[in-house]
């Protein structure tokens, strides 16, 4: 019997096989610490896990994003629609605010004057560009007739030259056939305001000796029996003294741009209204008050448009202090 004759290799292998569980028992005693042996495997495993997680997360996110995109597109469409509605409403509101201001100005002017006025809207222009006339939506049925003054809150516009039953045609001060009596307010120099082109007119027959300067205000003279006296007409743009001429060559810019006016007043009865110094320019050296013709004319283009392009809301309004009391009926 070869009891002691055993294979050492086998014995060692058996020993290892039995020892490994024992060693593992020892390793389990400190589970919180990862063993150096397991570190590479755990690193590899976590890497694989991370990769799969990242992949699944990416797929999930992409899917979610697609689903979200569908929702976002719908929401975006809704928001766009709402935004467009709001913009439209805001524009409408802005237009209403502007219209409100304009109408307030008209109402205020109507309340402050003793003239009998009829409000009308501008509905059309002349058939040909060589004549500057406008059509308003009031006619003889509303008491309008030829040679009645048509004004805006800040200045004269023209006069009715043809009145029909429902509409009237207004010859603007800028029309070549228009002639109105005018006075340079500062020096009381008399002249005739004659239309010239779409954007200007001229003061004619002013004596050469008269003192007329650029920026002077020309008001209605009242001799034409159309306009009340003292109402602003235009501002002197240029003055030319020709050697061989008895009169000055004075170019004017109307205080109201006739093509930007939407509502006008027709003077049914001036009731002897004399605006006198209501639109007087401030004395030299004093800053122009806001709301006066001077202020409007002197203001830079960014704050207020120059007089010839001013709209009824931008053009001067009468000074409340100088307003005569209304006549009691």
């Amino acid at each position, binding site marked *: 019997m070869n009891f002691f004759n055993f294979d050492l290799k086998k014995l060692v292998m058996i020993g290892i096989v039995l020892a490994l569980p024992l060693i593992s028992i020892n390793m389990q005693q400190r589970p919180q610490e990862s063993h150096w042996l397991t570190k590479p495997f755990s690193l590899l495993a976590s890497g694989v896990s991370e990769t799969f997680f990242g992949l699944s997360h990416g797929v999930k996110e992409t899917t979610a994003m697609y689903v979200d995109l569908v929702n976002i597109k719908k929401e975006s469409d809704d928001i766009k629609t709402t935004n467009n509605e709001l913009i439209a409403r805001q524009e409408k509101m802005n237009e209403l605010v502007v219209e409100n201001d304009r109408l307030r100005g008209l109402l205020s002017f109507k309340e402050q004057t003793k003239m009998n006025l009829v409000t009308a809207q501008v*509905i*059309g*222009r*002349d*058939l*040909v*560009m*060589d*004549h*500057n*006339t406008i*059509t308003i939506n009031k006619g003889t049925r509303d008491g309008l007739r030829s040679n009645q003054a048509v004004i805006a809150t800040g200045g004269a516009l023209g006069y009715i*030259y043809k009145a*029909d039953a429902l509409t009237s*045609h207004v*010859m603007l001060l800028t*029309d*070549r*056939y228009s002639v109105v009596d005018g006075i340079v307010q500062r020096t009381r120099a008399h002249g005739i305001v*004659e*239309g*010239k*082109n*779409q954007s200007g007119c001229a003061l004619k027959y002013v004596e050469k000796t008269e003192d007329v300067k650029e920026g002077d205000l020309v008001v209605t003279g009242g001799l034409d029996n159309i306009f009340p006296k003292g109402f602003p007409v235009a501002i002197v743009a240029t003055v030319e003294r020709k050697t061989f001429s008895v009169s000055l060559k004075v170019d004017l810019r109307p205080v109201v741009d006739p*093509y930007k006016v939407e509502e006008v007043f027709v003077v049914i009865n001036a009731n002897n209204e004399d605006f006198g110094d209501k639109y007087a320019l401030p004395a030299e050296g004093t800053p122009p008050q806001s709301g006066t013709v001077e202020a409007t004319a002197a203001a830079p283009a960014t704050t207020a448009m120059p007089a010839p392009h001013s709209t009824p809301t931008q053009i001067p309004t009468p000074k409340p202090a100088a307003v005569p009391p209304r006549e009691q009926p």
Partner: protein
Amino acid sequence: MKIRWHAFFNFLALFSILIFVAGIQTTLWYQLFGSVPSPLLWLNLVVFVTLYRKPMPAILTIYAMGFILLVYTGMPLKMMWISLLILFTLVYGIKTRVFWSGPGYYTIMCGFSAVAYHLVFFLISMVLEKNPANFQFVDRLVQIILTPSFAFPMYWVLAKIDRVTQDELVHEPGGMYL
């Protein structure tokens, strides 16, 4: 006396269209486009009458049209009639030498008339008016471009009306025979 009803209705339709296009030009165009110069739609109508009517009825019709157009403008009658007479003479003079049917010819003549009208009016104004018209080049140019642009649709409508009212028309080649 035999009343030519077709001719009567044709005149009636023509004047209705004149009032209609003048209304468009003075009111609708102004409301839509503000201070942009409007096309001379009435001039297209005048050109149509000059081209497709016999000379005597044509000039009488044009005078009547000019008279009606005064409702829409501050232009005096003398300026209107003289400018229309000269314009008629120019257009008729071309027509007797060169004429072919269709809207193409009509459009060309409308373009020519737009240019001629502005020149004629400017010159007459310098001669007859104390305070002559200004040469507002850009505005006139816009009108000259816009006017023939509306000639095609206007021709279509006017030719249709002529066909319905069966007036004696010159819509075919051989327009020199008047």
